[in-house]
């Protein structure tokens, strides 16, 4: 950030809810189906069709509100009127002045608290694609519309303008995504559009100065784009102000390829949505018992899951910074139960965490589908010295390919046999004899040379030797 300036960032996150059907009709809520196959009179806006609210969508929205420490309130639905072919009805049903969830907060992993203004329900729009040379609206000859997504339940989560750096914005979206996944509300797939982020960015010269004029950035499809777009936009606004011009309040589109934001429209032509109460829907009034029942179904949230893994590492002297990063990775990917079960089964917490963060994480979908017992058995083989680290990784890859299985049997199939103590000792001896200088330094107390000798043994055995056993043998030889 340019010195003398501070960014002010608020984020609006649209999250598609993981329901079986749409918000107001029984059409399936599925990503990637053939165009216009999941449509009915309701989501096509045909005359005479009536919306009926999906109970599961309401409960997932309440779960999000609970997870974000919101007040869950009686709410109503409005029609937001606009002409655009992504809505066949020419209006979107959304919550306006009486949203379901208000006044919550989200704590970033470093403890920084971001206020949540509201988390309200609304329906998604259809998907438009623009035919023509550019694929963008400008220059398109016509547009094509698929209404499969029209009416899919969304919750829009609006933060307070509390963030001051792009890093905080990234951390917020990452943590929010983890919370949405943990609460069962969303699959959190930004690449499939089930989570979409808009950023409101302004700059000011001092932390106690009034907020500057803000711009809203759309089309942020990844956490990386979000960070880049915010940095770019703040610099653009600073340059404007420093050259004596004013920032114009407007909506801007992030162009990932060009690495810049471009104006879409300015406030003068801001839409007049003419909101009015949706006459075909009645108020949604959750009572205390319903709210409690939904809260009871909530699983552990990411912060608690991270704390659980940190707790497991206490026995080995507490989590290092690197291990804290591993913990974040494992929890974000929903793999922490694997670690917990492995440790409960007798595997050291450091090994269980490292294998999960480094190897299991490379194919998180496969890892989540894995029987925790298979995973435990594999780690026990490695912990017991029956498989080297390299071999354990190979067996895990095979478990993923097969979708499970008996790790010991796979190891046998692959010809992985633990080296006998005699042959290990012989290999170590060869390495030591071949490098008398290094051995001398090792014996003189230069412990780093242990890694050198382990490397030689691993090379000689093509990774079949157990690292710990090699280290033990080296220590024994040194006496």
């Amino acid at each position, binding site marked *: 950030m340019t010195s003398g300036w501070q960014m002010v960032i608020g984020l609006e996150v649209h999250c598609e809810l993981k329901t079986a059907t749409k918000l107001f009709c029984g059409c399936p809520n599925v990503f990637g189906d053939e165009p216009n196959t999941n449509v009915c009179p309701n989501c096509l806006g045909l005359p005479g069709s009536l919306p009926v*609210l999906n109970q599961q969508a309401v409960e997932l929205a309440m779960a999000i509100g609970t997870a974000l420490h919101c007040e869950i309130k009686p709410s109503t639905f409005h029609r937001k009127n606009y002409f655009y072919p992504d809505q066949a009805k020419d209006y979107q049903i959304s919550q306006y002045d009486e949203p379901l969830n208000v006044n919550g907060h989200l704590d970033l992993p470093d403890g920084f608290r971001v206020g949540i203004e509201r988390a309200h329900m609304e329906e998604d729009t259809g998907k438009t694609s623009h035919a023509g040379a550019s694929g963008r609206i400008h220059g398109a000859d016509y547009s094509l519309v698929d209404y499969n997504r029209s009416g899919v339940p969304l919750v829009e989560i609006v933060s307070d303008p509390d963030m001051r750096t792009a890093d905080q914005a990234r951390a917020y979206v990452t943590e929010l995504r983890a919370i949405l996944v943990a609460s069962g509300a969303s699959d959190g797939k930004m690449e499939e559009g089930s989570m979409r982020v808009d950023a409101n960015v302004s700059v000011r010269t001092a932390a106690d100065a009034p907020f500057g004029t803000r711009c809203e950035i759309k089309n942020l499809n990844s956490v990386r784009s979000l960070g880049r777009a915010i940095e770019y936009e703040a610099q653009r606004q600073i340059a404007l102000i420093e050259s004596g011009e004013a920032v114009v309040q407007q909506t801007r589109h992030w162009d990932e390829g060009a690495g810049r934001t471009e104006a879409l429209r300015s406030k003068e032509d801001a839409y007049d949505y003419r909101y009015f109460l949706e006459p075909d829907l009645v108020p949604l009034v959750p009572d205390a018992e319903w709210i409690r029942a939904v809260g009871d179904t909530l699983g552990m949230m990411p912060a608690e899951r991270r704390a659980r893994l940190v707790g497991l590492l206490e026995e080995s002297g507490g989590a290092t910074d690197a291990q804290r990063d591993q913990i974040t990775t494992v929890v974000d990917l929903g793999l922490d139960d694997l670690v917990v079960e492995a440790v409960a089964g007798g595997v050291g917490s450091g090994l269980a965490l490292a294998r999960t963060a480094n190897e299991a994480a490379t194919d998180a979908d496969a890892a989540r589908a894995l029987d925790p017992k298979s995973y435990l058995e594999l780690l026990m083989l490695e912990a017991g010295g029956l498989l080297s680290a390299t071999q354990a990784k190979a067996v895990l890859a095979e478990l993923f390919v097969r979708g499970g299985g008996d790790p010991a049997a796979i190891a046998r199939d692959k010809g992985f046999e633990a080296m006998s103590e005699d042959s290990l000792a012989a290999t170590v001896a060869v390495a030591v004899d071949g490098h008398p200088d290094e051995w001398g330094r090792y014996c003189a107390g230069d412990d780093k040379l242990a890694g050198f000798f382990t490397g030689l043994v691993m090379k000689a055995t093509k990774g079949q030797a157990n690292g710990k056993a090699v280290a033990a043998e080296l220590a024994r030889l040194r006496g």
Partner: protein
Amino acid sequence: MAGPARLTREDVAHVADLARLHLSEGELDLFTGQLASVLDHAADVASLDLAGVEPTAHAMAVTNVLRLDEPAPCLDRGEVLGQAPSVEDHRFRVPRILGEAP
């Protein structure tokens, strides 16, 4: 109690524009008068002392009308697209849109 400012011809032109209605000069005059009298009628309610009266969100005192999250049959795509003036690649083909989605 002062009511809202009286409806102007410009207001009606703006609302008509938002609704994509193309009104002639004569129609603008006609509808300004008609709409103004409707709003005058609503303003009568605003002149009443309604302190302590609960706002009415809906004509029926009903809340929480919900359905189970169970799939229902969809329409046949051929039939659906058969109603459209123009179709391409199993999608509705619409005229070029100016501007991004609001």
